[in-house]
């Protein structure tokens, strides 16, 4: 029982960190940060992130195993719409658009959730729990990173992405080693 809980948490954390890495990289690539100049815009930004992380994560848990392609297409379309909204207006966006963009940019959570829940055979009864814990962790990590980012004088965005990237790769390698040793990671 204890082992199962640990395996479950292991996968949830890796799924969350990989999602963070991907979402932050896309945000960095799109220069979304340049459209934010005032703390009062943060409400819209975080509302979009919170809504996006929960909705995409829970959607991911309802998709069929073989629909990862659909998940990727949804992500591709969402990112394209975000880029269009940002650059068709030269980064001059309203708070409503900022909400929509931050919502759409979290879309990689959908295929990642789908991938983890199916690849590691998360039990059907645990899928929604997996999604909820993963989203909650995602929001918590984003908040912690946002506070650190602000305290750093707004300089550590790429450093933060690097941090999440290497942690994510490290956990992936651990998963790989455990599998090579024949440890059952199905949760």
């Amino acid at each position, binding site marked *: 029982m204890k082992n199962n809980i640990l395996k479950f948490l292991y996968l949830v954390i890796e799924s969350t960190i990989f999602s963070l890495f991907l979402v932050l990289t896309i945000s960095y*690539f799109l220069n979304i940060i340049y459209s934010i100049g005032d703390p009062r*815009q943060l409400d819209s930004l975080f509302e979009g992130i919170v809504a996006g992380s929960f909705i995409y994560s829970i959607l991911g848990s309802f998709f069929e195993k073989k629909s990862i392609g659909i998940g990727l297409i949804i992500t591709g379309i969402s990112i394209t719409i975000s880029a269009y909204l940002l650059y068709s207006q030269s980064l001059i966006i309203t708070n409503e658009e900022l909400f929509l963009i931050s919502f759409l940019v979290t879309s990689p959570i959908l295929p990642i959730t789908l991938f983890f829940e199916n690849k590691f055979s998360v039990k059907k009864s645990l899928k929604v729990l997996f999604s909820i814990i993963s989203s909650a962790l995602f929001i918590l990590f984003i908040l912690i990173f946002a506070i650190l980012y602000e305290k750093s004088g707004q300089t550590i965005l790429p450093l933060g992405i690097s941090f999440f990237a290497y942690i994510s790769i490290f956990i992936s390698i651990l998963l790989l080693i455990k*599998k090579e040793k024949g440890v059952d990671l199905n949760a």
Partner: protein
Amino acid sequence: MKRFYAIFIVLILVITFFSGLAMAEQSNTKTPIKHVITILFENHTFDNFFGIFPYDKYSWNEAIIKNMSIPDNLLNTSYLNNLKPLSDNQYSTPDPIEGYTAYHIDWNNGKMNNFVNGSGQQSMEYFTSYQLGLEWAIASEYAIADQYFAPQLSESAPNTLYYISGFTPVINDYGPPPSFSINETIFGELNNFGISWNIYVQNKSTNNFDNLQQFIYDWNGYSNHLQNWTDLVNEAKNNTLPAVSYVFSENSNGFSQAPPDNVEKGEIWLAYLINEIENSPVWNSTAIFITYDDPGGYYDHVAPPVLDGVQLGMRLPLIIVSPYAKEDYVSKTLMTHTSIIAFIDYNWDIPALNNFVDESNLPLDMFNFNLTYKNNNLVRGPINILNQNFLPSGLNLSINPINVTLNFSKLFPFQPQFNYSSLPYSRMGYSNISLQSLGVESYIKKDFSYVPFYYEPLFFLFLIILNIVILYFYGGKNEK
């Protein structure tokens, strides 16, 4: 042994010769100005601080006000009612919404009528002589520019980077990366030409000047140029002030006048610095430039033009205090932060820092380098702020003002040093002289900024693919 002595003597002579050349370069100026001090405040437009002279209930109509431009673009809009002065006993406004996005909404493609929607209602509140009488009086005693624009339609970092380097690798307050070498800045150029310079902050132990040092990746090699404000005052008194001094008011302790801080703290601090310089041996050869880093989201009615392909931001105040600054003069010269760099390059006869500086107009019309109108004395005496009439009781010029709730309205303007009718120049003018028009070449042909490869988006893309490969192809082995 004799050979050793000979080599030693030759070495000494060579070193003396070259250091002499460097000193000669430093003291060889095109104008009587041997010391430029440039003081940077934060977050106010021209109209927010100086735009309402004509209508201020306390102002004196003989002063500078006659030549000021009048806000008129809101006359037929519903936003006119939003434009209102701060009430007496009010010394700050709530912070307007700032940023690349907010300022572009304010700007509204040059219509300058959307500040309420971009930066909020507070952006339409403006200051009067009640709060700013002291700064207004200093401005009217010397020269002020009312066509001086922020170099970028954005907030602090890009504008302040233009202030020191004539370019910016970022469009908002985020970064680095990218960063750049000190050689891209005016400090690097001064260094290379043997012209002395320092940067002054409240507390140099922080190794921080307006967070700009983090954009200069080789700053640590020059950190001995970072000094305290008290050092500036002492160096002026001891006549050891460097040729060029960049003074940062810094936001965190309330000196920068940025909202929501009390503007009188920075104003009295400024008056203290000016008073100290005026009463020091360097006064006769000093020009003090006073300006603001960015508009801060405050209303200004003049649409900023495009300069060398760059869309400028809203107007900012620029005041020049110097015995050679024209009294009660309004400059209509189109300028931006790089005009100050251009003046430094011009004065010490060195190349324009970069192409943008090369094309920036010089503030030469704000000076009268032929002062012959007072008993043939070339140099104007100090005004001595503390001897002025109508000083509010409780005013204590200090490097750290405590009493900052004073009524300065009666202080404006100071008694003119010369009757306006006897001034040998017009009280308004402009010039379109740039270093480029004088045939000066650029020192840096192309600005260069640096992002480490491990912070490049493409490198992150590589890591993403690597992560997916590990998870998918290898992690799938036990799937069944």
